[in-house]
């Protein structure tokens, strides 16, 4: 906690005096804190609480212990599919988008500054362009007139058009491509900015110390200095890769063919907003929270090893 005049051994009165003394600071914090606690923290707390209840909004929630979780993992095959899909999407688009963001940011940093501005714009735009991913539905349209089919048929690689968005073998791939395409967001900007700000003196010193090429430079100088940005980028990647939702709805429909693109968030929305089983939906959300927190821990461990 905070250290301030007088040390830790103080009476309750002194604590209150300190709080009263800082009232202006609390007043500045208050408006944000109220909104933040009510609409970001409280929902997480409520989710965890509801996950142990039966709750259909109309009646008062009834305590059911771990029943929702037991049902999720033992009696809901669609959830198991959703869990597998979510893990697959997260494992590919999370690290994939993260590494892509870093590699592109690093490559961009190696170019001159005028090109840098242009490249940052090109790679960052898809992440803020909103619903443009709808276009992937046209590019991967299942008939002979879809761009990808037309392209492959022209090259003679396939003879019949592939039904990308209804064939369970291909749906996931198209969604992964689409997510990767729009994965260079806040984390990417953080990388670009962080790389730009690594002091060039370190590089000069390293050159004298005998680092030979840009790869050694990356591993021994750049990456260790970029750790804080890499943690931030990792959090952004976890958040987006575990909450894939709208892309699957707009590309594969709901429910997708054979639930091939069904994610945990899809499942949660289905139970929450279609069937009004808020307790069950909250259990799904809680499982998601745990998976995200776990990934964060894991990445923290991994980042500690960088540069050694």
């Amino acid at each position: 906690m905070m250290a301030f005049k007088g040390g830790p051994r103080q009476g309750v009165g002194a604590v209150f005096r300190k709080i009263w003394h800082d009232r202006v600071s609390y007043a500045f914090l208050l408006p944000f804190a109220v909104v933040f606690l009510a609409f970001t923290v409280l929902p997480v707390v409520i989710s965890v609480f509801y996950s142990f209840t039966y709750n259909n909004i109309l009646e008062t929630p009834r305590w059911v212990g771990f029943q929702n979780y037991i049902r999720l993992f033992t009696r809901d095959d669609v959830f198991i599919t959703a869990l597998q899909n979510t893990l697959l999407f997260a494992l590919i688009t999370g690290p994939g988008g993260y590494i892509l963001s870093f590699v592109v940011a690093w490559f961009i940093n190696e170019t001159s500054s005028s090109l840098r501005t242009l490249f940052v714009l090109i790679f960052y735009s898809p992440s803020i362009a909103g619903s443009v991913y709808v276009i992937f539905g046209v590019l991967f349209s299942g008939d002979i007139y879809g761009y990808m089919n037309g392209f492959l048929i022209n090259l003679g690689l396939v003879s019949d058009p592939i039904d990308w968005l209804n064939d369970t073998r291909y749906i996931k791939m198209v969604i992964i491509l689409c997510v990767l395409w729009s994965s260079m967001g806040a984390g990417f900007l953080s990388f670009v900015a962080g790389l730009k700000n690594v002091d060039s003196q370190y590089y000069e010193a390293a050159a004298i110390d005998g680092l030979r090429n840009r790869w050694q430079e990356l591993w021994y100088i750049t990456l260790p200095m970029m750790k804080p940005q890499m943690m931030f980028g990792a959090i952004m990647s976890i958040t987006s890769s575990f909450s894939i939702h709208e892309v699957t709805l707009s590309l594969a429909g709901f429910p997708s063919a054979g639930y091939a693109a069904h994610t945990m968030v899809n499942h949660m929305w289905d139970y929450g907003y279609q069937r009004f089983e808020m307790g069950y939906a909250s259990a799904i959300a809680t499982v998601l929270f745990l998976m995200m927190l776990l990934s964060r821990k894991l990445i923290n461990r991994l980042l500690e090893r960088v540069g050694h």
Partner: protein
Amino acid sequence: MRVPVHRRITRRLRHILRVRSMRSIGGDVANLLFLALLSIVMVIPMVYVINNAFKPLEELYLSPPRIFVQNPTLDNLRDLFSVMDTSWVPISRYFFNTLLVTLVGTSGHVILASMAAYVLEKHRFYGRNAFFSLVVVTLLFNSTVTSIPNFVIMSSIGLVDNYLALIIPAFGSPLGLFLMKQFMESVPNAMLEAAKIDGAGEMRIFFRIVMPSVKPAWLTLIIFSFQSLWNSTGGVLIRSEELKPLPYALNQIVSGGFARAGAAAAVSLVLMIVPIVVFVLSQSQILDTMATSGIKE
């Protein structure tokens, strides 16, 4: 002494491509080539959206489809307002809804997050570290994952079907507070102390000294907040047709089929281009802010 030609060319190339040592020219060329190729893949969907907005109807339904427009026309943009004016809710209303929610939500967020960031970074008080740790943890949980309890909260305080259901949560976005707080480290304490000695109150210090010196961070908060509000469809929180935002209208027009394809292409362009323009205008300052975005564990 004459420098051999190939040396001069190499030197010139080095100058154009970059300046640092430990770089081979071959590597630099490969680097540029890689970025250029990947860029093409990245821009195809966006180029397609831009071209579509200017395609006459028969070109929108051309088979096989073409990316580039042959006979550009402004009909789609014109149709956007005339076609939709005949429907129940005019398109201008959806546009107004999105604009209102985005502008109010974003400005509120910038002010509230900056006030909180200022005291978290520059003042010492109980609970300050605990609160900031909570903010960093919640960066993980976006509105998609907390949607269901959020809906329950909104309905219990009667905000469903009200602009405020979209606007108020945006005020308290943890990402904005986090970025602003990190950037505030760069505001020199000496400047704040000097103002205090001159007798300035906290309000005055905040608005006259702190806010003007963190302008790059404003822009960063604006782009992130703007982007999420601008793309909001309202989801389950907005029920009435006349309160729905523009992305919702786009979905409706798209499912409206053939006759509305032109209008849909035009709406897509508007939705896509606005956040990109906002970013282009503020790019260098946003990068200044993002340099301080790191999380030290």
